[in-house]
């Protein structure tokens, strides 16, 4: 093998390898194209269900940020969830944060429902209006309780 052919093959190899790295970073994953450092917003929930760190923050289904941290606030005994939101998406101060589930068995995410106020949330602000995760067990027990109450009510009304 002459030196020139070796150089040519090494060049082809390097191009292939770099193309593979580009493929992995652009096609397989998504490099964040955000316009800068995300701003953080704090929220408190009564119950976060199965929300995990790094879960997406969505508004109208569009991913606008990630859950940056979850901890239990021992002053209020509520879950403090830190949201890191892309600065390209400003939200009004009266935005409502809710913990929602994508699909029946899907992952949980934080949904932001923007309000109508003119002031925008800045880094370090808190979202006061929140809606906790729906806990399936509570829902089912409520449903059973209601249907049992209705059932007995029907019986008593039909008896006399």
């Amino acid at each position: 093998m002459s030196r020139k052919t070796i150089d040519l093959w090494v060049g082809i190899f390097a191009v292939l390898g770099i193309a593979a790295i580009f493929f992995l970073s652009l096609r397989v994953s998504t490099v964040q194209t955000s316009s800068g450092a995300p701003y953080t917003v704090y929220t408190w929930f009564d119950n976060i269900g199965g929300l995990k760190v790094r879960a997406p923050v969505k508004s109208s289904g569009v991913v606008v940020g990630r859950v940056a941290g979850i901890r239990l606030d021992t002053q209020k005994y509520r879950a403090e969830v830190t949201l890191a939101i892309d600065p390209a998406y400003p939200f009004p101060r009266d935005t409502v944060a809710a913990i929602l589930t994508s699909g029946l068995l899907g992952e949980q995410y934080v949904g932001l429902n923007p309000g109508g106020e003119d002031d925008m949330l800045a880094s370090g602000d808190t979202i006061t209006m929140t809606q906790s995760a729906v806990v399936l067990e509570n829902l089912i027990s409520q449903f059973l309780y209601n249907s049992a109450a209705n059932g007995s009510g029907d019986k008593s009304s039909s008896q006399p």
Partner: protein
Amino acid sequence: MMDWVTEPLRHIGARIINAIWRLGFILRFFAALLLASGQSFTRLHLTLREIWFTGVLSLSIIMVSGMFIGMVLGLQGYEILQRFGSGDALGIMVALSLARELGPVVAGLLFASRAGSAVTAEIGLMKATEQLQAMDMMAVNPLARVAAPRFWGGVISMPLLAAIFSTMGVFGGWLIGVVVIGVDHGSFWSQMQASVDFRIDIVNGFIKSVVFALAVSLIAVFEGYDCHPTAEGVSRAITRTVVQSALTILALDFILTSFMFRGLS
């Protein structure tokens, strides 16, 4: 009189001391190699030849194996995921398992057996035929002329090979999942892009492949340089390269994974 007790103990002790001594020796060798590696960048064609030898010649095995691993992941992953009615998530499974684990680890194992063994054999034979000594006589440092270019050639080519391996794997998974089984093309890619994180998955996988490249190249060069200069010694050195590289890759993979991915969700 207590020989049957002390003899095995003494044997174990000797083995442990020998292993620690070898670890110190390989680290000293690594330091000497780094000090002598200036020449492999000033005389770049030495390193380029090794990239050709370890990288370009490993391309076919890496691409074919990556393809097969991806296709197996496609078949097995779909079979498992469709039990939960989430066959569309096949792209996530294929891409994550390749980028995080299989890409760097399997490419590293293949690289160790395809290129590492060849490097050990080459250096070992040079030692057995006293070429290294001859170089030393001519005031050519064999570490700088022989060992360092092979080391850096391996370090440069192995991460590229791992990236090519992962890419071929994703392509193989796509081939089985989308073309053969019929998972939706759009959801295969969009779910993959939504769930694979550049910083956490791709960059960490790349870091893994660089660490494996350093380990495998160092072991391959060291075993060749350290072997007994006989035919049997060279063959033993090659065996040691493959065995130790495999063990080192798997152990390092566990350590790196436990640092990178512990506590994530």
